């Protein structure tokens, strides 16, 4: 059952976002080191100090380690939800709204580890890091990393779609990343490059998969009242949804017509004041290129199987990127495929910067609203509407 109830609407603000920038190489730094750098930047951007923070919401790096490293004297709430980053936003916003904490430091530390790149095995300090238990240990599975490849194959089977349609997503991200100094992959990319890329699991290649990076993003989440007294324009969280259905195993999910994204869309639409016709920015998830096509269709920009045609009709040939109706960019920071695989934190950070007018040469003039859909299909579809206060 999907409820439209949303007492938290516009009652929690993101006061600041900061990043270390991302690199597709093993840095000689820990996740905690990268995370702490981003956290200090976010706290300073608000004009705050460590002692102004009373809540911590992190990802892989335990809140306790971050508190200890930063010398935050005391917190009254902390949590480490799993990624993608919509989970951190949802938990932190709910904690602020409920009064469990007033100023929450939220962070995510994308890191090159054995589960996302074999390159991590070269570093003795990474070898024992997070692996994916049960997924990908035998070839005969579509659990874990192979899941989106399997449904991408089904997409090609069911619709008049081609691999070039996945390629548009990769090219769009790369063209946008060229204007983002924080991005890991900025060299130009065209369709010939895309089609020549090394196949990993047909039908998806290297360029359909997010880039394993080192880096960190951090955020300050607080009440609109507190945010107004801080240094930057507040961004209000209008609605957050974490959507899932019962058949959420990769090979049992009912089909392209029915998975977590459809729950997210129905609930987020019901709980928000604007939808695609009122958005200035769009951040569909792109951990695999195919996920972006699915989100474009799920949010209703076009019908099932029509995302490729939709992109062609909204393609800025000169800039080699998507501009919906000639003015709405899609993942203007370069997304997971080119800025780096940040499991959604990069998307949220760019949305905040755009809505604060801090996006530099990527700035969308007068941007006031952003629709974000982090995550994929099965157990991690998420939605977020943000607006400038």
């Amino acid at each position, binding site marked *: 059952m999907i409820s439209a109830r949303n007492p938290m609407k516009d009652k929690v603000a993101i006061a600041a976002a900061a990043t270390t920038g991302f690199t597709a190489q093993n840095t000689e730094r820990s996740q905690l080191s990268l995370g702490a750098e981003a956290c200090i930047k976010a706290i300073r951007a608000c004009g705050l100090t460590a002692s102004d923070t009373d809540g911590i919401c992190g990802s892989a790096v335990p809140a306790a380690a971050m508190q200890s490293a930063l010398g935050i004297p005391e917190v009254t709430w902390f949590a480490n939800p799993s990624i993608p980053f919509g989970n951190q936003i949802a938990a932190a916003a709910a904690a602020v709204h409920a009064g469990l904490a007033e100023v929450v430091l939220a962070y995510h530390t994308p890191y090159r580890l054995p589960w996302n790149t074999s390159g991590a095995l070269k570093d003795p300090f990474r070898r024992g890091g997070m692996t994916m238990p049960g997924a990908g240990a035998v070839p005969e599975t579509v659990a874990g990393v192979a899941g989106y490849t399997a449904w991408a194959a089904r997409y090609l089977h069911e619709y008049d779609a081609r691999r070039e349609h996945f390629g548009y997503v990769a090219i769009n991200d790369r063209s946008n990343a060229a204007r983002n100094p924080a991005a890991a992959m900025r060299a130009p990319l065209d369709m010939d490059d895309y089609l020549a890329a090394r196949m990993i699991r047909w039908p998806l290649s290297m360029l359909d998969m997010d880039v394993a990076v080192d880096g960190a993003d951090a955020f300050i989440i607080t009440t609109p009242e507190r945010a107004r007294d801080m240094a930057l324009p507040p961004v209000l969280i209008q609605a957050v949804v974490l959507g899932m259905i019962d058949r959420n195993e990769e090979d*049992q999910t009912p089909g392209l017509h029915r998975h977590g994204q459809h729950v997210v869309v129905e609930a987020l639409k019901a709980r928000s004041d604007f939808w695609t016709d009122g958005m200035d920015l769009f951040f569909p998830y792109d951990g695999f290129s195919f996920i972006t096509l699915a989100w474009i269709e799920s949010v209703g920009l076009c019908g099932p199987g029509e995302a490729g045609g939709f992109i062609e009709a909204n393609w800025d040939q000169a800039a080699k990127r998507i501009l919906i109706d000639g003015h709405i960019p899609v993942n203007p920071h370069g997304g997971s495929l080119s800025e780096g695989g940040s499991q959604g934190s990069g998307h949220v950070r760019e949305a905040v910067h755009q809505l604060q007018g801090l996006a530099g040469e990527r700035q969308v003039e007068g941007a006031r609203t952003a629709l974000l859909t982090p995550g994929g299909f099965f157990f991690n579809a998420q939605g977020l509407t943000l607006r400038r206060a």
Partner: protein
Amino acid sequence: MVTDEALSAVFKGHSIDRDNVAHFRGRLERRLLINRCIDCGVWRHPPRPICSSCWSSRLEPTPVAGTGTIHLAIFLHQGPPAEGVDYATPYPVVTVELDEQPGLRFTSSVVGAPNETIAIGRRVRLDWIERAGTPLPVFRLAEGAGQ
């Protein structure tokens, strides 16, 4: 009889627990067992401790006919090390919708067929091969059957 202690070594790469142990023991006897609810008859995979349709705890790991239709098909150009798999020829992985119930699916590989003949919509039947001495359920394309 393989002890519970030894099962995880026999099924390397799988996470064996109380809820799926019967399925893996079935494999040792070359029987593909899928949980079926004794009370409402609904099949469900992977194994869960209760029936998600009627909440009965009376689940019977039941052999399936092994016939079905390819629903998802991918080809691995790289992947985890496994005996008999070298990826020089991309390795097919298919999710098969079993004839027992719409939406009931099992994922494995297809053997004995060139990759260009393995496609979504093809009919298949269950067969067994061995990997490192342990039976592995796989599929073969059904003879003469088209889409």
